[in-house]
């Protein structure tokens, strides 16, 4: 089950709309992010082969899905698409919906029992789709798509229309798919928190154009993209891994690019990946190494840039270690009192927020 990359370079013209997107999807979960109507769903449909007007090339490993040589019909592409409205066949039970996909599977893929247990479908099998709730339908649709044996699974807003409880039920199932089933995901979303807790990489789209693609932590930490992401508070994302757990205090130690940090509220075991966010308002600067504060984490930092954010307030970018960065806001008075200038070394007290844990 080696994962061949999916490369595409596509255009689609419609009256008043032009889609232009090129990228290469590797492993893991990629979020396709952008405002409503920017062409996210259309891009999924192009990749799946459902848009006859789509021009350009799509290549999966050494198999050409679309190009000058011709087009592979949708049913012969190793792709699955879970539509936003799930589209379970109403004339078949949940079980028969799964059977439909399994009988037509295009290669090796997850086993039936694995899918049914992994997605918790056993109790739903004899139900008719009309009797299923939104979350249950989503799970059956997801299972059905996996049983068809895709190498790439396209999900169109799989969490929209679900309440918070259902979302948190489906989220871990989605996160587990790439490793568990060897299938890579491209997930359409317009919610930041879904990107942060789901994806390791993201594609940013606006008005039919692919603006950029990068690892999630990189994009969310880059000020240029904050307007696209709808972020008002400067923040950075630090991917980390659990290295130790202190059961007496309920604290977990994480290794990140910025150094070791201690946080609460994580029960994951050693080695589990964790995504942390540090917002500018959760960073406090101190000249001396802080001795007695209620903040658990302090890191040595170096001032990189200073720029005026608004009247009397300066936004400071700090370097942490060799690769990580941080943002904070300080008043102009503090800039003077701490003699902040590029290159100045001092200490940052930070309060990281745990965004997501992959179990």
């Amino acid at each position: 089950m080696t994962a061949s990359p999916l490369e595409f370079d596509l255009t689609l013209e419609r009256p008043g709309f032009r889609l232009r997107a090129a990228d290469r999807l590797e492993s893991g979960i990629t979020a396709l992010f952008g405002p409503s109507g920017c062409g996210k769903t259309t891009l999924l449909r192009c990749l799946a082969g459902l848009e006859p007007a789509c021009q350009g090339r799509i290549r999966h490993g050494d198999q050409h899905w679309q190009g000058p040589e011709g087009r592979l019909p949708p049913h012969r592409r190793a792709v699955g698409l879970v539509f936003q409205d799930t589209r379970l066949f109403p004339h078949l039970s949940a079980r028969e919906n799964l059977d439909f996909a399994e009988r037509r599977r295009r290669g090796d893929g997850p086993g039936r029992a694995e899918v049914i247990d992994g997605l918790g479908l056993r109790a739903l099998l004899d139900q008719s789709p009309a009797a299923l709730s939104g979350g249950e339908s989503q799970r059956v649709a997801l299972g059905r798509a996996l049983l068809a044996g895709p190498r790439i699974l396209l999900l169109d807003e799989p969490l929209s229309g679900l309440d918070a409880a259902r979302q948190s039920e489906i989220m871990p199932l989605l996160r587990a798919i790439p490793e568990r089933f060897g299938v890579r995901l491209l997930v359409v979303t317009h919610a930041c928190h879904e990107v942060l807790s789901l994806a390791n990489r993201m594609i940013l789209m606006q008005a039919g154009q692919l603006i950029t693609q990068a690892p999630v932590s990189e994009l969310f930490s880059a000020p240029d993209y904050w307007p696209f992401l709808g972020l008002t508070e400067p923040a950075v994302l630090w991917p980390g891994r659990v290295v130790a757990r202190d059961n007496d205090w309920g604290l977990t130690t994480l290794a990140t690019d910025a150094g070791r940090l201690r946080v609460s509220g994580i029960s994951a075991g050693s080695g589990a990946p964790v995504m942390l966010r540090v917002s500018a308002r959760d960073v406090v600067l101190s000249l001396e190494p802080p001795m007695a504060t209620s903040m658990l984490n302090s890191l040595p930092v170096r001032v990189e840039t200073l720029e005026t954010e608004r009247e009397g307030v300066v936004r400071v970018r700090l370097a942490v270690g060799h690769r990580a960065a941080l943002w904070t806001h300080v008043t102009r008075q503090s800039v003077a009192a701490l003699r902040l200038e590029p290159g100045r070394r001092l200490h940052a007290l930070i309060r990281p927020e745990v965004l997501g844990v992959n179990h």
Partner: protein
Amino acid sequence: MNLTPVWISLQLASVTVAVLLVLGTPLAWWLAMGRSRWRVAVDAVVALPLVLPPTVLGFYMLILLAPQGPVGGPWLAVTGETLTFSFAGLVITSVLYSLPFVVQPLRDAFRGIGPRPLETAAMLGANRLDAFLTVACPLAGRGFVTAIVLGFAHTLGEFGAILMVGGSLPGETRTVAIAIYEHVETLDYAAAHALSAGLLVFSFVALLAIYTLNGRRRPGVGL
């Protein structure tokens, strides 16, 4: 009472509906899903038998099917039999006459399904024929029932067109509707009553069945 016309009518209706399902299903699919610019014109042609006087249809069929006609001639050469005044000629005429009653419910059923279930089927690895047979046809189930019942009942009630093409040969082309006409002509009102009442009851039961079925439609399955 002579029941031969009843058997002839039932045979004619069954064969006609069978032929129409084979020919009409792909036609209805094309009318519902096709993007050809000829679609509207073909739609209108399919609806013609609804508005044409049966005698007009019968007249043209007579010309087509006659031993010297463009269809009847080759048929005579190949089979050694004429199409006019034969059961085969009745079937051809009935297929055209009942065409809209089978094609239109199927077309509307397919249209009601739309492209989405077929896209879904393609995403699960089903080719177009597979998706048509395993998804579109079951979802259009009510459309098929309506098409079969309407096509059957309408063929049973056919009179003008088949009288012109088939005449009234006992045991060959004399159907129920024609037998009723003949009974009235010969003032045998008792026989006319029996056959008429039979057709009336059958037609009512058939329509009642369709309306009952359609009254219980489920969401998402269009007719």
